[in-house]
C-alpha cells in the first residue's frame, strides 16, 4: 500500500516535465530507480520472498526428508484440505474468532473510555497516562509469565483473592471452560494502551470549536459524544480496529506461554496451531503449518481490503 501511493505521487510529479529535456530526464530516472532500489530490494528480500516461500511450502508435500533434499512433490491444495478436515480446525477457528472479537471489543471500549478521561488534562494526567503504557512496554514473555503466575490454580494471587472473598478457586489455565477466557483477559490488558494512545491523539485532533458550538446549542455530554466525538473519531477508530485485528489474529506468545493452547486444545487458535504443526512436534509438518499460517494472512488481508474500500468511498 505504501509503495503504490509513493509510486503514484512520483508519477504525478514526473508528469509536468516536458519531453524535450529527454536525456536529462533519463539520468533523473536512473537516479530515481537507484533510490527506489534499496526499498525494492528490501521489500523483495524480506516480504515478497518469505511470503512466496510460505505459499510454496503450503502447496507441497513436505516430509523431513524432502525438506532437506528440496524435492518435495507438488501437492496442490492437499495441505489445505488436510487442515480443513482436521478435528482441530473447527474449534481453532471458533477460538480465533472469539479471542479476536472479544479482545478487540474490550480493548477498544476500555481504550476509548480512558482516552476520553485523559483528554480532559487534569494535574498528573500525563504521568498516569504514561503508567497505562507499561503493559505495552513489557516484553510479552514477561507479561505472559506474570499472568500465568497470577492465574495459577494452586498458588495464584487471583485465586487467593477469590478465596478471601469467599469464592471457590477457578482453574483459570487448566480448565477447558476457562483457559480461552484467561488468555483473552491477558491479551485485552496488553492491548488497551495501544488503543488508548491512538484514540487519545485522535481526540486531540477534533477541533475544540465544534464542542463549543454544540455547548452553545445546548447539547449535553451524551449528545456531544454520540453526535460529535464518535463520528469525527471514526477514521481513527477504523484504523485502530484494523491494526488491532491484524495484531490480535497473530497473537501467539501470550497463549503459548500461558497454556500452550491447552488443556487439550481448549485455547488453541490458528496462530498456536500453525506453530504446533510446524515446530511443536518432533516430526514437523511444514506443509499444513504453512497452510494454517496462510489462512491467517488471507483473513487479515480481507479485512485490510474492506478497510481500504470504505476509506475510498468516504474520500472520493
Amino acid at each position: 500500500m505504501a509503495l503504490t501511493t509513493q509510486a503514484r505521487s512520483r508519477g504525478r510529479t514526473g508528469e509536468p516535465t516536458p519531453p524535450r529535456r529527454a536525456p536529462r530526464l533519463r539520468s533523473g530516472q536512473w537516479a530515481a530507480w537507484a533510490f527506489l532500489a534499496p526499498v525494492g530490494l528490501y521489500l523483495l528480500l524480506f516480504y515478497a520472498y518469505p511470503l512466496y516461500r510460505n505459499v510454496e511450502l503450503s502447496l507441497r508435500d513436505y516430509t523431513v526428508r524432502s525438506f532437506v533434499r528440496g524435492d518435495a512433490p507438488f501437492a496442490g491444495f492437499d495441505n489445505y484440505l488436510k487442515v480443513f478436515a482436521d478435528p482441530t480446525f473447527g474449534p481453532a477457528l471458533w477460538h480465533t474468532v472469539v479471542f479476536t472479537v472479544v479482545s478487540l471489543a474490550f480493548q477498544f471500549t476500555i481504550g476509548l473510555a480512558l482516552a476520553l478521561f485523559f483528554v480532559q488534562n487534569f494535574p498528573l494526567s500525563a504521568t498516569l497516562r504514561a503508567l497505562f503504557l507499561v503493559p505495552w512496554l513489557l516484553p510479552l514473555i514477561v507479561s505472559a509469565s506474570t499472568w500465568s503466575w497470577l492465574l495459577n490454580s494452586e498458588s495464584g494471587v487471583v485465586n487467593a483473592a477469590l478465596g478471601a472473598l469467599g469464592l471457590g478457586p477457578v482453574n483459570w489455565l487448566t480448565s477447558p471452560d476457562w483457559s480461552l477466557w484467561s488468555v483473552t483477559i491477558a491479551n485485552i490488558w496488553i492491548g488497551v494502551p495501544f488503543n488508548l494512545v491512538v484514540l487519545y491523539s485522535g481526540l486531540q485532533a477534533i477541533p475544540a470549536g465544534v464542542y463549543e458550538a454544540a455547548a452553545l446549542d445546548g447539547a449535553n455530554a451524551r449528545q456531544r459524544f454520540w453526535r460529535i466525538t464518535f463520528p469525527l473519531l471514526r477514521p481513527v477508530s477504523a484504523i485502530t480496529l484494523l491494526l488491532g485485528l491484524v495484531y490480535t489474529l497473530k497473537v501467539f506468545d501470550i497463549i503459548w506461554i500461558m497454556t500452550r493452547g491447552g488443556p487439550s486444545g481448549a485455547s488453541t487458535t490458528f496462530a498456536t496451531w500453525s506453530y504446533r504443526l510446524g515446530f511443536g512436534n518432533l516430526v514437523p509438518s511444514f506443509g499444513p503449518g504453512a497452510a494454517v499460517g496462510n489462512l491467517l494472512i488471507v483473513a487479515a488481508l480481507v479485512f485490510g481490503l474492506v478497510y481500504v474500500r470504505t476509506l475510498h468511498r468516504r474520500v472520493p
Partner: protein
Amino acid sequence: MRSAAPGRLAAGLGLALLAACSTPSEVVDAPATAASAYTIWDPYPQYDATSEWVRLLEACGAQAGVKVERTGYDTSDLTNKALLAAQQGGSPDVLIVDNPVVSTLAEAGVLTTTAENRLDVSAVSPNLLGAGQSGGETFGVPIGANTLALYYNKDVLDKAGVDPATVTDWAALTAALEKVTKSGGKGITFSAIGTEEGSFQFLPWFWGSGANLTKLDSPEGVAAVTLWTDWLKKGYAPNSVINNTQTTSWQEFATGEYAFAENGTWQLANAEKAGFPYGVIPIPAKSGGPAPAPTGGEFVAIPVQEDTSRYATSQRLVACLTNGENSLKTTTTLSYIAPTEAVQQQQVAADAKLGVWVEAVKVAKGRTGDDLGTKYPKISEPMWGAVQAALSGSTPPQEAMTQAQRAAASATQ
C-alpha cells in the same frame, strides 16, 4: 547540478552493493583458512566457554589435532536448526541432539550410520541405544542417559507415617498419598503439560501398567490415565499439573509441601539445595517393581558431509567424548548416568546416591524404540492431548484414549 548529486549517490550505492556482494566470497574463504576447525552443535546453552563441558570439547579437539568451534542451542530449536543446516549443506561435523530426535534426523537422511562413521557402540546398553536405531542401522552414540524417578520429602512422609520403602506398586502409592493428604500435606506433583514433556512424564505410568504405544486405548493404557485422573479428583495431585512443565512441577515440590514429585536426574543438584531431607525411589509399576521410564539424554551423531574425509576426525572427537574414562567425565559434567555398565559402576562407587538412578536407567526404554521411529511423535501428540482432556475433566479417560488412538492410527498410516 540537480541530477549530479543523485548520480553520485547512485554510484556510491553501487559501490556499497558491490562491497556487499563481495562479502560472501570472504565467507567462502573462511573455512579454507580454518580447515582444521570442526563444528559441534549441542543443546546445552547453559554452559558457556569457561564451563567444564566446553573445556572437555576443546581438549578432545586438541587430542584429535583440530580446533573445535562449539555452538550451544536451545533443545527445542536444535531440530529445526539441524534440518535447515542440512538443507543448506552446512551441517556441523558433530551434532548432539535429544534422543527422540535422532530417528527424525535419520529419516531426513541427515545423519551417517555407524557403519559409515565407524563409531564403536558395542559397550552401550541396548535399551539406551534403541532410541538411535531404526531399520537395523545405528545413527549415533548416547552421550549419557537420564530418566524419571520419584523424589520424596522425608519430613512430609514422616508426619503422615509413610515408609517410602513400602511404595512399590500403584495401590501402595495411592494409599500413601491418601495418608499424606489426611495428615495435612500435599500428595504428588508432576508435569502433564500439552507438549512432549507431558508425554515423557506420563510414559512411566503408561508402560508400568503394561500398555503399548501402538494401542493407546487398551485397558492398561486407560488404567494409567485413570490413575492420574483419580489423583486429581481426590486432591492427591494439584490441578496445576495440567499446565506444569517439569521445572514448575519441581518448584511446587521445592516449597516443601509435597510428599512426592516425579522428576529427573537433572534435579539432583537442586534437591540438595531444597532445604529438606529428600530421597528417591523408582516409579512403581502397576503390579509392583520399577516401571520402565522413558530414557532422556542426548545422542552424539555425525551428520552427513559432502567432504567424507572429515568423518575420520569427527569419529575421533565423538570417541573422545564417549569412551571409557572420558565418559565418566562427560556424564559427571552433564550430570547424566553413563550409557555403559562399566562406567555406571564407577559412578555408583563415587556417589552411592546415583544407585537408584542407575537401576532406573537399566529398565528405561527409548520412546522411539520398539521400531516406532518417526511414528512416535504422531502417537505422542494425541496421547498428551488425551491425558490433558481426562485430567481437565472434559472427557472421561476411556473416551479420551479411544479418540487419541483413532487420531494416532490415522496419523501413522
